[in-house]
């Protein structure tokens, strides 16, 4: 992305790992939670793991878009 240039020379990288962690937790908790809720609602068993994996995958994709283009 051309307009996505960080104005700072990204020096505060020491915290980036921790920020990534909160994304991973957020994604897994959110979609895992949705899966859990749907399982309870529909009486199924498989949506919780599907949600967890989907959440983790989507978060990794998000991190790719967010941090990947920064070089």
């Amino acid at each position, binding site marked *: 992305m051309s307009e*996505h240039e960080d104005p700072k020379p990204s020096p505060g990288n020491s915290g980036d790992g921790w920020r990534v962690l909160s994304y991973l*937790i957020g994604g897994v908790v959110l979609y895992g939670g949705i899966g859990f809720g749907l399982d309870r609602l529909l009486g199924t068993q498989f949506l919780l793991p599907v949600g967890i994996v989907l959440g983790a995958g989507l978060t990794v994709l*998000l991190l790719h878009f967010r941090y990947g283009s920064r070089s």
Partner: protein
Amino acid sequence: MIAGVPTEFTPPGPESFDLPPIIDGVSWFTKPVLVSALSVVVIIWFFWGASRKSAIVPSKLQFAGELGYNFVRNSIARDAIGSAEHMKYVPYLCGLFFFILLNNVAATIPLIQFPTFSHIGWAYVAAIMSWVIYNTVGIRKHGAWGYFKHQTMPAGVPVWLMPLMIPIEFISNIVVRPISLSLRLFANMFAGHILLGVFVLGGEYLVFETGNIALAGVGIVTWLMGLAIAGLELFVQVIQTYIFVVLTAQYIGSAISEEH
């Protein structure tokens, strides 16, 4: 079974953190309250003393004060927020840094040896303060709706993925951040204190209670290990302080940034 082992060893647990009030009848006045109050006094004394007689050729105290202040201002605030706007947040970040630092290192200082932030309420309040600040400055800068969009619309994501990504951004930036900020600090302090307790009390039990010379030898080794753990804990205490303040600065920086 070894003969002469009289009683069971009870390791320290969460109940080790329930300290009695220092003065009978004043239930809120416990060790963490005393230590944090003392830390505030020490910080005020330190920075007041360091800045009172500012000189071109600094005294040792002034030099130490400037070293600490410059570290927070340059290495944390300016790097994370940017040189244009960082000065506004240096007082908070500097105060936060030294408050957490002293209260963490209190776990290592002899006779005090209790980390204030091993009581989770303290960590919650510190994290909530940072949360309120970064959200407030973000809303001031972008307006409520603009800030909400700013925090939840990731740049560079294809439009068709947006509906899936926006909830992740929201949960991560608004909900998980303060929780992880407080839990990280709390859990490190709590675990470190318990770990030290296991080594020191376990060694004491082996040396004095078992009445067995071989086990007493093991107890001595346990104490030496405890000493090494104490050194590791000192490192963890400083690192956790740094992480907490760096993350606060980065959250502020990303809240007021023009674009992600």
